[in-house]
């Protein structure tokens, strides 16, 4: 069977070789890179612009962005027909292609995030490695821990006030360089689509900007969600510990601190959400107003076939509803959770409507293609380009975060050691 045939249904006049070649993994790709970029921008708001209210969130967002970073290229690997040749992009990059820069942009960004993390956690590494170094009879577990943290210090044990100040300065510079690089990383994902002149729905210079805005929205939403979940888990663990020890923070203290951070972050979420929606609507209005050759088929897709996906799911449930939820006075944690979940869903639907919607009509402008997401996998292809492949990609950063947070603790750095 031809690749793509299994999930494509053709209607009316479609060229014989046309299928939905870019399936759910290509929806996941901009979705995941968007989360990476968004999380980083959120952390930079504190480091660069000194927005103090986001201090707690900033450290968290940076570590989470690092976890997401590893998951971001995975959808592409799962999508490639020859995944083992993926490295060819680095070996013979063909720079007229938007994808060719992926290796360079991605590794630059990775290096920035990694070095910023190192400066942020250098003190923590030294504080763990030093006592272990002096300890005489280490157990195997301690040896292992010592080895990891000793390596992570990169041989720098200087914790003088002067050097710590220099660390902070480095963090600030890296965060500042990181913002344009993060935007570039994602804007360029938008460029991959926006520059395809053969596709009437994709081709618009607004695409990279729209992608950046919705990326920041989704990144902030995911950070808020993960922040709330981890705070709830800590609350639960603390309440159990409090039974045996006195002096732990009370649940009320936790709750007010948590709500404060969430309220602050929600404000930035709304700000970027308004930007994203404005640009998307501008694009839509402009297409309708100029009504070039492709508009007939685009209109039938946007207002007809994909109406529910675009106007109900994306704009209604994914944008308008959370917008109202966050704007209503007296924001609670529960409402915030619902809000960010809807925002994440909305951004996912936006990616879906771009990637799948862009292939919903034929290049002949006289036929349509329907995409049926494979749910129950019956071979490798329907697994990796089906529901479960997409879900595994989505779960991956959370699993990674759990491991990474063991080395880079995100909460109460002082209390943990």
């Amino acid at each position, binding site marked *: *069977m*031809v*690749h*793509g*045939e299994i999930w494509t*249904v*053709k*209607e*009316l*006049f*479609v*060229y*014989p*070789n*046309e*299928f939905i*070649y*870019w399936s759910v993994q290509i929806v996941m790709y901009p979705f995941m890179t968007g989360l990476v970029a968004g999380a980083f921008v959120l952390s930079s708001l504190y480091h660069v612009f000194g927005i103090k209210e986001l201090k707690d969130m900033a450290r968290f967002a940076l570590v989470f962005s690092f976890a997401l970073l590893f998951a971001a290229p995975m959808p*592409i690997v799962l*999508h*490639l*027909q*020859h995944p083992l*040749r*993926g490295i*060819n*992009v680095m*070996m*013979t*990059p*063909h720079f*007229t*292609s*938007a*994808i*060719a820069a*992926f290796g360079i942009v991605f590794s630059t960004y990775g290096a920035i995030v990694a070095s910023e993390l190192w400066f942020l956690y250098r003190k923590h590494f030294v504080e763990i490695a030093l006592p272990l170094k002096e300890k005489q009879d280490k157990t195997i577990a301690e040896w292992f821990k010592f080895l990891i943290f000793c390596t992570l210090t990169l041989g720098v044990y200087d914790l003088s006030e002067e050097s710590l100040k220099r660390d902070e300065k480095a963090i600030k510079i890296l965060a500042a360089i990181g913002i344009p690089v993060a935007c570039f990383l994602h804007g360029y994902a938008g460029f*991959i689509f926006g*520059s*395809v*002149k*053969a*596709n009437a729905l994709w081709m618009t210079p607004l695409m990279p900007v729209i992608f950046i805005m919705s990326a920041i929205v989704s990144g902030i939403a995911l950070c808020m969600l993960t922040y709330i979940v981890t705070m709830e888990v800590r609350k639960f663990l603390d309440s159990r510990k409090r039974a045996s020890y006195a002096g732990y923070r009370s649940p009320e203290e936790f709750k007010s601190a948590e709500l404060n951070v969430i309220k602050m972050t929600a404000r930035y979420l709304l700000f970027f959400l308004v930007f994203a929606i404005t640009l998307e609507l501008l694009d839509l209005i402009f297409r309708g107003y100029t009504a070039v*050759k492709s508009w007939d088929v685009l209109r039938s897709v946007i207002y007809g076939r994909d109406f529910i996906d675009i106007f109900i799911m994306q704009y209604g449930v994914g944008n308008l509803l959370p917008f109202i939820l966050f704007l209503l006075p007296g924001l609670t944690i529960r409402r915030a959770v619902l809000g960010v979940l809807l925002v994440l869903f909305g951004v996912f639907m936006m990616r879906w409507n771009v990637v799948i919607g862009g292939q919903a009509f*034929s*290049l*002949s*402008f*006289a*036929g349509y293609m329907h995409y049926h997401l494979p749910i129950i996998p019956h071979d490798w292809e329907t697994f990796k380009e089906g529901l479960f492949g997409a879900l595994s990609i989505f779960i991956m950063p959370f699993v990674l975060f759990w491991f990474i947070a063991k080395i880079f603790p995100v909460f109460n750095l002082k209390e943990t050691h």
Partner: protein
Amino acid sequence: MKRREFLKKAAIGVAGITLPLAALEIVNPRKMFAGKDDGAKVRWVFLVDTYKCVGCGLCVKACKNENEIPYDANVTRTWVERYVFTKDGKFHADTPKGARDGFITSKIDLGQGKYEDIKSEDIQKAFFVPKLCNQCENPPCVQVCPVGATYQTPDGVVLVDRSWCIGCGYCIMGCPYGVRFFHPKYHTAEKCNFCYHRITKGLKTACVQACPFGARQIGNMKDPKDPVTKIIMTERVGILKEEYGTKPQVFYIGLDREVK
């Protein structure tokens, strides 16, 4: 710093920066190649006479066999489209299985197993249009390939390196003509290459050879004596989807405005 001094230094600075930049002109291999006299003496072009096509599908069959595209797979390097205009002003088009078996019924294929029967007395006009890769002068598929696995030869044909293609599908998305697909066996990008293995040996392409009516012809645009070149230069010919700026090199006689 005085104004005069500042202007002086600024002028020197600007001159100093621009001079080395000018010296570093990037050499374009293609330009260098074109500048040489012994450059390509061949530019393959294709000519389709739609008046002569009867939609028998022998070209599609021959192509599939020649180029080892699995016979029953729903992809093909070349195909034939049927256009039917009815008296009520509507137009219908289809290409069942790429017209591999020809158009054996008057029913229009609507996809999903549905057909529409059109009575012959309702037909205003109808014709067939063979399609194949346009071997564009400005190929978007070559532009978007991230690894350079697809490239344009000096004689104008766009080829795919099966051993280097990563299978990302960007070229398939980038082609406005829908000629590209994934090979069902090799899982790499696949397309019509004017039977490059044949034409470089002086043979005709499989589809040209198989066409009993001479609807398909291949020629060398750089040879003024070539019959195909003569027709393209002296008669009125059309190309497909000019608006994409790809400069296609498959020319059509008798192209209708509704041909997609």
